[in-house]
């Protein structure tokens, strides 16, 4: 008797099968860009601890075309991360009940995005500082 050859559903490229999976993967892959940005900042902190010359070398690097291009990509990915983080927040947090009614998902997402806008404005104002 021939050996049984049970059907095993192939899992290669499973995430390309469906729009939902594609969105999931896009969301997960933002992690690489978040790490990349943290490493850029880490390099800056190391250079800062080594003194003025070292830090100014890092700053010169930031002014290069490659660095600006990288940061434009990072900016786009971080904006997507902000959007996706708050879109899934209704699913990742425990149900929120206010006066007997469950707060709808869109309201949680909207509140999260509003907080991100406010926090970003506050950071911008703090970073800009007083004009000298």
């Amino acid at each position, binding site marked *: 008797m021939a050996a049984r050859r049970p059907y095993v559903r192939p*899992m*290669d490229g499973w*995430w390309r099968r469906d729009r939902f999976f594609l969105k999931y*993967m896009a969301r*997960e*892959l*933002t*992690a*690489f860009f*978040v*790490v990349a*940005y*943290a*490493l*850029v*900042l*880490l390099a*800056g*902190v*190391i250079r*800062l*601890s080594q003194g*003025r010359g070292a*830090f*100014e070398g890092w*700053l010169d690097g*930031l*002014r290069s075309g490659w*660095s*600006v291009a*990288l*940061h*434009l990509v*990072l*900016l786009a990915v*971080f*904006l997507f*991360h*902000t959007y996706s*983080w*708050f879109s899934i927040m209704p699913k990742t947090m425990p149900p929120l009940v206010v006066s007997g009614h469950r707060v709808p998902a869109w309201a949680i997402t909207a509140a*999260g995005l509003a*907080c*991100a806008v406010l*926090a*970003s404005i506050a*950071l*911008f104002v703090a*970073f*800009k*500082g*007083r*004009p*000298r």
Partner: protein
Amino acid sequence: MKRSSQPPFWLLFGAGGMLSALVGAMLVFLTGIAAPLGLFGAGTAFTYERAAAFAHQPLGKLAVAAVIALFLWHGAHRIYHTLHDFGVRLNAFTWLACYGVALAGTITAAVALAVV
């Protein structure tokens, strides 16, 4: 019941994800685009004096350390679990490649900030 080691990592993942969702895009814009290009004049210029003065205050140290460390732990956790989705066998090596990088980065940032 065996206790899972997941909650602390999940907490760091969540804190990093939340911090990067709130201010990540603006941070990238300020430190990587606006400041190097001097988009808003001298006010946003990145200078050694400004950076050193900021990193000298305890709160400044804490803010820089929090951004670097939490972003790293967020990324490490997410990448580790995404590797599994791509069929990569999870073992001690993949664990170290993800969380080890986050730990090393955290320690390096802490040491550098301590001597600034």
